[in-house]
């Protein structure tokens, strides 16, 4: 038997594995087609659309106020921030100025929502690495405090529908600021605990360091935003660079990574949560008096025109492009969702990695299917 025939006899074969839409680590209904050579990923194709509800078409049949509940269902782990991004866009279109108290309340809610979202993102990421359920439960337990506050404030635990064009739906209930201070005090040591679980854990660092490196130029070119972009070393945060609401009044830092690997993406999120606590603390201390609420029934008729407003969501920049024709319903609304751009970079990142690392990279990108498919 010569060499070539031996090779043919015991040669290896690449094969396709279908990962998802039902798979424990695809965060919803993402479908990946992976071409594997043994354990190594040769190529990957991302299929999306399993959660497509055509939000943009729905928006063309709803008034501006009526669409707010639908924004809850985009990135369902950060509904508060979606609400905020949407009402900011409508306010920019209408040229409405918001009262100071409403601004501060919005900042508090957005930052707490960011923490809630990052807690979920980090802990599910660690679960993807195989630390089964324990970090996730810790994250959920900490998140529960924030969710309880949201429940107190707006009456729901997942789909808040709290922001309104021109303000918020309801003022904070009595004693809410004390509660927020309590949450901030409670969360700080809990973050230390989470960091003790992961930061220096040799298995965790071995699994994440140098895995799925996203260079800065590639990140920008792919339109990656949010913590994923900052992990690649680009210091870009809309809260600092294009301040909306009253973010320019608060002091906070923007955590930036160096290498753009999975570890940096984790670390940036972890640090960002602490910064969010700082912002929330300053906001709750400086909370002005006044009436933040607006009448829910108001019908908005913007001038014909268009606007594009983006704001810093936990997963990146959520943009709303609204075209108005003067009627109470938008003529066209495009939702530029951060996860959509973030997931597009995945095939590039996982090429040549092990299948376990592909899961790690997907987890570290922290995508939510609700806003990818819209």
């Amino acid at each position: 038997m010569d060499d070539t025939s031996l090779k043919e006899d015991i040669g290896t074969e690449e094969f396709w594995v279908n990962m998802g839409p039902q798979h424990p680590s695809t965060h919803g209904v993402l479908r990946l087609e992976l071409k594997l050579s043994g354990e190594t990923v040769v190529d990957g194709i991302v299929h999306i659309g399993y959660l497509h509800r055509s939000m943009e078409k729905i928006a063309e049949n709803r008034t501006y106020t009526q669409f707010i509940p639908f924004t809850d269902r985009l990135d369902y782990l950060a509904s508060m921030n979606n609400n905020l991004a949407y009402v900011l866009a409508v306010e920019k279109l209408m040229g409405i100025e918001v009262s100071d108290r409403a601004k501060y309340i919005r900042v508090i809610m957005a930052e707490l929502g960011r923490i809630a979202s990052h807690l979920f993102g980090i802990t599910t990421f660690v679960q993807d690495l195989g630390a089964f359920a324990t970090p996730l439960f810790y994250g959920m337990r900490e998140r529960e405090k924030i969710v309880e506050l949201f429940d107190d404030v707006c009456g729901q635990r997942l789909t808040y529908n709290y922001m309104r064009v021109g303000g918020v739906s309801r003022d904070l209930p009595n004693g809410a600021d004390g509660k927020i201070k309590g949450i901030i005090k409670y969360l700080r040591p809990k973050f230390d605990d989470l960091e003790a679980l992961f930061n220096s854990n040799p298995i965790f660092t071995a699994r994440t360091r140098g895995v799925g490196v996203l260079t800065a130029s590639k990140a920008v070119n792919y339109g990656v935003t949010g913590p994923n972009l900052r992990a690649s070393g680009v210091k870009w945060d809309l809260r600092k660079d294009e301040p909306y609401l009253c973010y320019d009044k608060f002091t906070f830092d923007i955590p930036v990574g160096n290498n753009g690997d999975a570890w940096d993406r984790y670390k940036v999120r972890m640090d960002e949560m602490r910064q969010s606590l700082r912002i929330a603390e300053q906001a709750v201390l400086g909370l002005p008096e006044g009436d933040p609420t607006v009448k829910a029934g108001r019908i908005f008729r913007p001038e014909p025109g268009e606007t594009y407003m983006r704001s810093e969501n936990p997963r990146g920049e959520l943009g709303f492009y609204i075209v108005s024709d003067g009627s109470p319903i938008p003529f066209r609304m495009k939702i530029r969702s951060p996860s959509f751009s973030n997931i597009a970079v995945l095939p590039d990142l996982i090429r040549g990695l092990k299948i376990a690392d592909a899961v790690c990279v997907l987890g570290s990108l922290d995508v939510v299917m609700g806003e990818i498919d819209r």
Partner: protein
Amino acid sequence: MSNGEAFGLIKLKIPDTSLEEKTRAIVVPREGILEAARCLTGQGFDSLHNLTAVDNKDNVTLVYHFYSMKKRAGIVLKTQLLPDDLTVESVERFWRSADWLEREVYDLFGVKFLNHPNLKRILNPEEWTIHPLRKT
């Protein structure tokens, strides 16, 4: 760099370019989109932030939002397509983010992007023949 400056630069290359009054968006003719893209990448607009289309019934307008991380500036570029000939050059070779964004626009509006590496439906099933966000 403001819209005005970028407009001046593109105007040099493509004489048909105009500036929209209200939105300060640069409107380039369909044929000039590649030239404009080349011009913008040269000017440091390294991120195609958003790409979408608006069906105005008599035409379909493509809206590009570009940002420059270095210059901290953003511009809006528009180009108009006629409903009976919805084809335009793909800008995927300049900005990789255009890959999925163009696929989405193709899926929802039926705009065909020429020289796109993988122009397939992205959100809707592949066997569909309609484009759901078209108004006509």
